[in-house]
């Protein structure tokens, strides 16, 4: 967590934590394993009342941040999600809500935003990879496949990126019931986070379904990628912080050869390294959140640096914490695997560490060299 929170931010984090502890303990997470939705809509709606869906949305549209830096505020919520491996489409709903609030037309704002804000509607974000658009005058028709989309099968709307034959990108918000759109649920490691593939076969896009225009699309998509990276990193930071805390406690309580495991230097040194990893993860995530919130020149760089850093180090940390737990660590009964599932999934969705390393190299060297 950011060590320099305002009072309101600290309150948001504390309220979210208390709420998740009460409404979404890991027993509740486990109970949702076979639930097709993967989250409890009542809990989600109550969370929306706490601000989970409105922090990136303009006040004029019914949203509002608590600190003036909505991305930092939302990162606090995401961190609490990680801490309790909470279910719920936090990342896609917020990315899409911000996109609508920033650049959709009147109709989408009026018809879609209120539902996202109060938690009665869900939006999926199909990410930056475009499907193909055939443009004929006012008529735009989309064809293509988006292989992995979070919450697509649970969503009412999906924000899709497309590119036409001239290389012009754009985005559209489509109902998931649109003709020609096939959504196929996928299996995956996380017990409650659902993914699906989306196939578009001649899906017609009306002008009032467009989000943003040709001129602004690339910037808008880049912004979405950055916000997604920050939210994902914040979630991972919360998750490893919790796993680390559990491990320190466990090693203090468990004895071997007449003394606590936590008194063996070999293990103490590993915990010291893990503490360092937890701190570097918080540090770079905070820096990225601030830069993305403030839209500084470093935002793209820091967002990807954070993603490569956490993506590379978080899973290793959790795996070693499992090792330090001994046999109990690889049981279904222990909660450690819930965290391992979450950080392993986070490592590879919305860009792998390698993808983000490539983005960094492009920034440093230029894409074409």
């Amino acid at each position, binding site marked *: 967590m950011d060590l320099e929170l305002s009072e309101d931010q600290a309150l948001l984090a504390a309220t979210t934590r208390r709420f998740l502890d009460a409404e979404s303990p890991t027993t509740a997470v486990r109970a949702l394993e076979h639930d097709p939705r993967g989250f409890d809509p009542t809990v989600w709606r109550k969370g929306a009342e706490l601000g989970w869906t409105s922090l990136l949305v303009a006040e004029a549209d019914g949203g509002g941040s608590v600190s003036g830096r909505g991305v930092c505020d939302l990162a606090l919520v995401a961190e609490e999600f990680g801490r309790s491996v909470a279910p719920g489409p936090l990342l896609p709903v917020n990315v899409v809500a911000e996109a609508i609030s920033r650049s959709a037309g009147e109709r989408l704002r009026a018809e879609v935003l209120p539902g996202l804000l109060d938690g009665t509607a869900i939006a999926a974000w199909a990410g930056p990879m475009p499907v193909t658009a055939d443009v004929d005058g006012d008529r735009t028709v989309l064809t293509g496949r988006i292989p992995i989309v979070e919450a697509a099968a649970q969503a009412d709307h999906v924000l899709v990126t497309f590119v036409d034959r001239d290389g012009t990108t754009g985005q559209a918000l489509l109902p998931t019931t649109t003709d020609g759109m096939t959504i196929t649920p996928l299996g995956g490691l996380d017990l409650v986070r659902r993914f699906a593939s989306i196939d578009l076969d001649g899906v017609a896009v009306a002008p009032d379904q467009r989000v943003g225009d040709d001129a602004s699309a690339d910037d808008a998509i880049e912004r979405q990628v950055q916000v997604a990276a920050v939210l994902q990193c914040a979630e991972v930071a919360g998750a490893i912080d919790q796993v680390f805390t559990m491990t320190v406690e466990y090693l203090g309580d468990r004895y071997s050869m007449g003394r606590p495991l936590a008194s063996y230097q070999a293990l103490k*040194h590993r915990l010291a390294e893990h503490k360092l990893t937890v701190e570097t993860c*918080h*540090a770079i995530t905070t*820096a990225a959140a601030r830069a993305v919130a403030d839209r500084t020149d470093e935002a793209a760089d820091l967002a990807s640096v954070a993603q490569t850093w956490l993506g590379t180090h978080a899973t290793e940390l959790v795996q070693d914490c499992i090792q330090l737990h001994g046999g109990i660590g690889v049981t279904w009964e222990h909660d450690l695997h819930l965290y391992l599932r979450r950080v392993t999934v986070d490592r590879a969705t919305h860009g792998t560490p390698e993808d983000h390393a*490539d983005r960094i190299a492009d920034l440093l060297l230029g894409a074409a060299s």
Partner: protein
Amino acid sequence: MSTDDLEPVEDFRERARVWLAANMPPNIDAYFDRTDERRTVEDQLQRRLWDGGFAGICFPADYGGLGLTPAHQVAFNGEVVPYDMPYSLNVPTLGILAATLVDFGSHEQKARHLPAILRGEERWVQFLSEPSGGSDLAGVRTRADRDGDVFILNGSKIWSSGAYAAQFSMCLARTNWDVPKHRGLTMFLLPIHHPGVTVEQIRQVDGSMEFCQEFFDDVEIPVENVIGEVDDGWTVATRLLVHERMAVGGGSQYTSGRSVGHGGGGGDDNDLIDLLRARGLAGDTDARRLLAESHARRLVARHLVERVTGGLRSGALPAPAGSLMKLFTATNQARRVEIALTLAGPEAVVWPADAEGATEIAAGIGRATLGRQGIALGGGSNEIQRNIISERVLGLPREAAADRDVPYKDVRHGSR
């Protein structure tokens, strides 16, 4: 003076920007230059900062400093990047020893030395480690025996960087052998060019002669030169080490501009980019990812320092958390040096006599690997930092110690 009366940070920054542009020469990347000529240049640069009113930003105004806040120092650090600066004064003189003197020096000690340090007239070093061991700092065996108004010092210190070119030291010695190790130590302000002190230089792997060993033969130290209290040297040493971790980690409020922690040795982004281009690897996926990792590590280090120094100041983190920065600086640098070595290829180990450009960068990287572990040892080894983090940040059980609560004279020693 309350902080409200101080010059606003942004005004200070603006004033510094204008002054630096008019007064300081451009940066010539001389971070690792340890020649006598360079040292003289840096002493003069420090004098220039002093004359311009920009020396000792966070040092007390009563002793020649500006009495400003860490935020002023951070602002200043942001402005000095394009200019040549007295880097080698940052560590250990300003960031470690002058900082400790602020905390524990007597009025006379501070009045005499702090302004002189800030004018660029005194270099200080630390006499802590001994031939018998550095990690067990509280186990030092150099002895100081009281004789009226003086202490008589006998023994030897080692690995003191730059002692031959310095004027003063802080020397930790044992003044009481009848109590357990931490309670019988005293910190002394010891002039280096002083009767009975012999300094010998030691050649380091990279060929440099920075390291020194000192021999003390009946060296007389006046009682006024005790820093802190007699037999309470451990308190001073602990504080000194906190400053050291801050300074080496790159988070000291007493240093201006770059010091050890800021990426040195791992190759700058620009060096690595030049290398990649020269070696035709700018389009190579593996090479690009290594470059990205090196860059990412630099940013992570920077933001870790920001987080930890902020946390130490606000009290969100306990003082020993400074070890997080020290440990990360060392392990991060090791990895960055290895990345640079990979990217540099064979020219890092064998180079043409007239190496220049990318070839010279590669050779520099090769040489940097030789001293790679230095930063993992100096200022307390990685293992000692891990002890500190686990015991004093995480609160895990202390290591069993055979010398705890034992009068020091009865403690066993090894043969090396």
